[in-house]
C-alpha cells in the first residue's frame, strides 16, 4: 500500500469533525504510518501544499478567505472530501442565512457589547460595524460543493470515526468508497 498525503482543513465549522477524526483513537497510530499529514490544524505547515492526495474539508464556506482557500484546495488536491454536515449542508452555520449579515453582526457586536458610554475607545457606533484586517463575511454560509466540485461526501454531525476510517482505508487501497449506509445527515 503506497503512502498517501493528507490534508485536513476547517472552514466555518466547530472542529467536531476533526475531533471525530481523532476519535479513531489508536487506529490513528496505524493510520499515521500510512499517510503523510501535510497540512492540518494539527500540524505546523502554514501554506497549503502544492499537491495533496486527499483533503478533508470541514465546515461551510462563509467568508471571502474561505472562498479563496477552497479554490486553492480544489486546485491542489486530487481528492476533496466534504467532511461533515457543515461542509455538505452548511448545517448550523447555515442557520444564520435566514438573517442578513448586518443583523447578525449587529446582534453580536453592537447589541451584545458594552454600551458606548462605558467604552474607552468608543469605536463601534450604533450605525454599524465594519471589520478590517479580518476576512469579510459572505452573505450566506454555503456548502462547499456549491463552490467547487467535491469527490466524496461524508455526512454526519460529526461523521462517525468508523466512517472516516473506512473512507481513508478505501482510498488507501485504491478503491472507490461506497459511503451508502456508513453515515447520514445529522448522525
Amino acid at each position, binding site marked *: 500500500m503506497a503512502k498517501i498525503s493528507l490534508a485536513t482543513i476547517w472552514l466555518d465549522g466547530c472542529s467536531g469533525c476533526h475531533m471525530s477524526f481523532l476519535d479513531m483513537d489508536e487506529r490513528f497510530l496505524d493510520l499515521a504510518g500510512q499517510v503523510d499529514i501535510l497540512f492540518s490544524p494539527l500540524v505546523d505547515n502554514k501554506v497549503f501544499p502544492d499537491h495533496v492526495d486527499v483533503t478533508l474539508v470541514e465546515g461551510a464556506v462563509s467568508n*471571502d478567505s474561505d*472562498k479563496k482557500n477552497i479554490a486553492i484546495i480544489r486546485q491542489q488536491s486530487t481528492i476533496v472530501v466534504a467532511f461533515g454536515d457543515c461542509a455538505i449542508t452548511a448545517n448550523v452555520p447555515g442557520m444564520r442565512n435566514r438573517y442578513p449579515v448586518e443583523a447578525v453582526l449587529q446582534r453580536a457586536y453592537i447589541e451584545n457589547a458594552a454600551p458606548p458610554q462605558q467604552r474607552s475607545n468608543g469605536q463601534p457606533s450604533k450605525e454599524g460595524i465594519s471589520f478590517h484586517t479580518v476576512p*469579510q*463575511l*459572505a*452573505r450566506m454560509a454555503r456548502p462547499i460543493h456549491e463552490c467547487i*466540485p467535491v469527490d466524496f461526501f461524508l455526512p454526519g454531525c460529526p461523521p462517525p470515526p468508523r466512517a472516516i476510517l473506512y473512507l481513508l482505508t478505501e482510498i488507501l487501497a485504491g478503491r472507490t468508497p461506497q459511503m451508502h449506509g456508513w453515515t447520514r445527515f445529522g448522525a
Partner: protein
Amino acid sequence: MTLNIEDLQQIARIEKSKKDGFQHRINVCLAAGCLSCGSGLIKEALEKEVTRRGLDSWCKITGVGCLGLCAEGPLLSLPTSGSYYQGVQVSDVPEILDSLNGSPVARLVCPAETPFFQRQVRIVTENCGRIDPERIEEYIAEDGYAGLYQALTQMTPQEIIDQVSGSGLRGRGGAGYPTGLKWMSMAKAMGSTKFIICNGDEGDPGAFMDRSVLESDPHRVIEGMVIAGYATGANQGFIYVRAEYPLAVKRLRLALSQAERMGMIGNNIFNTSFHFNLQVRLGAGAFVCGEETALIASIEGRMGRPRPRPPFPVEFGLWDHPTMINNVETLANIAPIIRRGSQWFAGIGTEKSKGTKVFALAGKVVNTGLIEIPMGTSLRDIVFAIGGGIPQGGRFKAVQTGGPSGGCIPEQFLDMPVDYDSLAQVGSIMGSGGMIVMDASSCMVDVARFFMEFCMSESCGKCVPCRVGTRQIYDILGKITASRATMAEFTMLEDLCDLIKNTSLCGLGQSAPNPVLTTLKYFRDEYLAHIHDRQCLAGACKKAEEVL
C-alpha cells in the same frame, strides 16, 4: 316559454328586416381591446351625433365584438360599404357621418384588402364584429340556435357524436384530444347526474381568443354546451370564466338570461324532453385552474389543485359525477358543425387537424390582434403575410406558441404548417392559441426566465418537482441572464427540466420546462454566450455585480 322552429325563424326575419331598414350601419368594436382605447366614448358620440342630426332611422350604431386588429383600435366597421376605420377619435365622429354617402374618410381607412382580413377563414369568429353580443336576436338572425334545434329535434345523441367525430374536431384547449372521443366516453359514463364544463380559464399570458369569443359571441358557446349536454346525457353545465374578464362575464351572464328567457336552456327545450341548466362560475386568478381536475376543484369552491389522473373526470368529476370539460373555442365550433355537417368542417384544415384555429397574434409584429385561420397555414404566412412582419424593419427571431406550456419556434421552421402534430414535433404545442412574435432584441434566455417565473408563481405547490424545481430553474436562469452562471449550473438546468417533465403530477407541471427546453434546443448559443463570454447576444440582459 318554449320556442319552436317557426318562432326562431320569425325572430330572425324580424331582426333582418330591422337591419335592412337602415341605410347605413356603423359597428363599433366594444371588445376589451378597443374599449381600453376609448371605443365606448366613440359609440356614445356617434349615437349622440346621429340623434342630433335626426338620422336615427337612417343610420344604426351597433356595439359589436372583436374586429380583430386590436393594435389599431378603436376600430369601426361599416358593413354597408364593407370598409373599416382604425384609430378613430371622438373628434372624427362628424366627419365619419358626413362621409357615409360619399367616399370614406381616407386617413382613417383601414385597408381591408390586406391579407390580414383576406386570409382569415372565420368559423368560430364568424359573428365577431358583426353582431351585437348583448342581443340574442342578432345571434338568431345569423342562424343562431338553429344547430341546437336541429340537434334536439332531428338527431339522436349518437348521431351528434358521430357528426362531431366525423368532423375531426380536436380540443382547442391545447392538448388536441379528439372531441368526438371525449363525448363518446362521456356518453358511455355511468351515472344519472352528469356535468358539462366549459373551460374559459384562459390563463396563458398573451392569449385572448376565449375572451374575444365570449365577449363577441357568447351565445355560440351556450349553444355548443346545450348540444353537448344533449349528446352526452348531461343536464347541468358550468361555464368557468376568469374573473379578470369582467366584460366577458357580464355579456355571458346577460346571454344566459336571454337564452333562458327564450327557452334555449331550462326545461323542455324546443318542446323536447331535454332539459339543461347552465351557470357561470368565476375563476379567481389561478392559471392551474385550466387543468381539468383543478378546474373541477375550483368549481366545488376549493383551491384549484390538480389530483392524479386516472380516474378521469369523465368517470369521477364534479362532486364525483361524470364530468366533461371542453374549451370555449371547441364548443364554439359545435353549432356550425351540426348546422353544416361534419364533411364541411373536415374539408378545412389538414389531414389530422381539421377546421380553423383562432390565434392571438402579439409581440413584435405589425398587425397584433385576433386571427382565425385554417389549420395548416404556415407560420411564415401568419407572421409575415397576415401579421405584416416585424415592425421597424426588425429581424424575426422566434415565435412562441402555447403559452407557458409551449415553446419558442425559430426561423428555420417558419414554413412549417401550424397544426397539432407539427407543433409537437418541434417541441411546442398548439396551446390555446397565443402566438407571440419575437425579434432580435429579445434574449431567449430572458424569455425562458419570464415563462419560468410564470410557472413558478402559478405552481399550485402540490407536487414537489413542480413546486421546488421551477424555483430552482428560475434561479439558475436568473444567474445565466446575469452572466454569473457556470457550466455546472447549466447542466443542472437541463437535468431539472427533465425531472420536472417526467415526474410532475399534472400536465401543467409536466409541460412547465417546455419554454426552457425549446430555447435550449434552438438557441443554445445564447445560453452559452451568457456563460462563457459573459454577454447577452441580444443585448437585453444586464450583468450583475458579483455578490459575496
